[in-house]
């Protein structure tokens, strides 16, 4: 079996692969946990918009301190949190429908980001990295940031589990139990923002939504209680990260795309064959 063992070990002899693998697993887990709330609350469009809207912030960090720097993370974080709170406020009191308002903010910010990046000399390469991720370029410093903030998100999700459950399932109950529903709603928006920034380098802006939505949706089809759904989603997210990177290494495809394709593949298999909720199960003659 030395060949098979070698198949798995060879990529790990490169430190950048090990760092990339670690980042992909953390991102897979964090996105899946936060993504469970995203799909249950119907916030997929918000998540996608937020991911795109951080582009100008990241572009400014890029212009100031270059591609590899961890300062990209901080620029992205500030932009994401401001945008999340901004969208949250818009959807409260606006004259427009919420998705319309989100669409305007999202497209405008994204255009601003592209305009800023287009002033750089290595325009195309940089844009590709920001849009689709560059997990193999993860430095030790940014891996550390990913781990710390990813861990923080997981801790908050666990600490506020029952409160987030109630505001998602029955906001009116949350009010009659006198929970601080507005504060909890904004906390959840900020967790989504942090998750997006943590995942930026791994899957990039354009593919972020897949990491938030696909593992959680897959787990939703397989489970019937939120804790197991979150656990299964995290497992699928982590496996997708690892398998995606091996795929990327051996057949030379873009790493972010490879991770997302593995997620999507798992989803398709589950959507077809899941007991009770799968397509095959529902199609079989009664």
């Amino acid at each position, binding site marked *: 079996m030395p060949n098979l063992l070698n198949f798995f070990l060879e990529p790990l002899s490169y430190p950048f692969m090990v760092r990339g693998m670690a980042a992909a697993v953390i991102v897979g887990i964090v996105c899946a946990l936060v993504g469970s709330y995203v799909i249950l609350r119907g916030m997929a469009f918000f998540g996608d918009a937020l991911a795109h809207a951080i582009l100008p912030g990241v572009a400014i960090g890029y212009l100031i301190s270059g591609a590899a720097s961890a300062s990209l993370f901080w620029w992205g974080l500030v932009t994401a949190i401001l945008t999340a709170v901004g969208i949250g406020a818009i959807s409260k009191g606006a004259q427009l429908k919420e998705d319309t308002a989100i669409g305007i903010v999202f497209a405008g910010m994204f255009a601003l980001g592209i305009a800023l990046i287009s002033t750089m000399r290595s325009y195309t390469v940089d844009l590709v990295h920001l849009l689709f991720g560059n997990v193999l370029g993860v430095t030790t410093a940014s891996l550390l940031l990913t781990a710390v903030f990813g861990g923080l998100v997981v801790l908050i999700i666990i*600490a506020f589990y029952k*409160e987030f459950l109630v505001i*998602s399932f029955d906001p009116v109950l949350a009010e009659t139990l*006198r929970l601080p529903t507005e504060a909890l709603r904004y906390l959840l928006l900020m967790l989504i923002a942090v998750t997006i920034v943590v995942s930026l380098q791994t899957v990039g802006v354009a593919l972020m939504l897949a990491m938030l939505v696909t593992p959680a949706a897959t787990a939703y089809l397989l489970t019937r*209680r939120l804790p197991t759904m979150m656990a299964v989603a995290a497992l699928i997210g982590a496996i997708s990260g690892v398998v995606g990177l091996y795929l990327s290494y051996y057949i030379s495809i873009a790493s972010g795309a490879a991770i997302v394709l593995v997620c999507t593949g798992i989803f398709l298999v589950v959507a077809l064959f899941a007991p009770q909720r799968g397509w095959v199960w529902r199609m079989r003659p009664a």
Partner: protein
Amino acid sequence: MQNLRQIPSLMGKPQPHLAGEPILALRDVSARYNGRFALQDISFDLIAGEQVAVVGPNGAGKSTLFKVIAGVLPSSGGEVTVAGSGPGKHICIAYVPQRSQVDWTFPVDVADVVMMGRIGRLGLFRRPKRLDWDYVHQSLAVVGMSEFAERQIGELSGGQQQRVFIARALAQEAELMLMDEPLTGLDVRSQEDIFAVLDELRARGVTVMIATHDLNLAAERFDRVMLLNGRLLGFGRSETVFTSERLLSAYGGHIRMLDTGDGTLIVNDTCCDP
């Protein structure tokens, strides 16, 4: 439903907060919904332990009234007091939503939903303790749903779903339960299951307000009836409230009345019931 007779020791008769105060009092309460007045100048008192049916056409403000009483929607005028103080500080008011307002595909089982009623008492960062699970199981026993504790909520019948939400209100230790159309869309047997639970709530001294479209059930099974259409058109015993003039002014043409010759009126809200 035989579990219904076992009265759990844990949940004794709820104590009133302030002796001598009505459990609920509204004085000239108005409320807006989507910019227009949904409720105007509503005043009434509820006696602790009574069961009241609230009837009125669609858009009469029944849900708005409940949400204002629960402290979920602000009133735009007047005063709501629950056991002597404003509703915003009480966690003893339970709003039981219409079944159509609930996401039945949400990944929670019956016990999860009932446990949600405990969260107001648990506080942040606290996990449910033995006592909380006791409340959950005893609440499920009261509504006859013990054997369904681990079912996903979407797998239940309409009547069972309704009883789960009443169990949640019990677990919340609610003394005032506001139930939004719990009887709508249920067959007669499921409705009787709900009435059996209401009898149990009566024995515990829980005050209940129910919104319904069924005027016959409202007249027969409740202590008092409230006729609402933006304004309070009548509140009292059904014989005095359900007069043809009042019903016509509440419903306009959307009601059927038959004079059967011996003086009785058979009335039917033609709105939504099957």
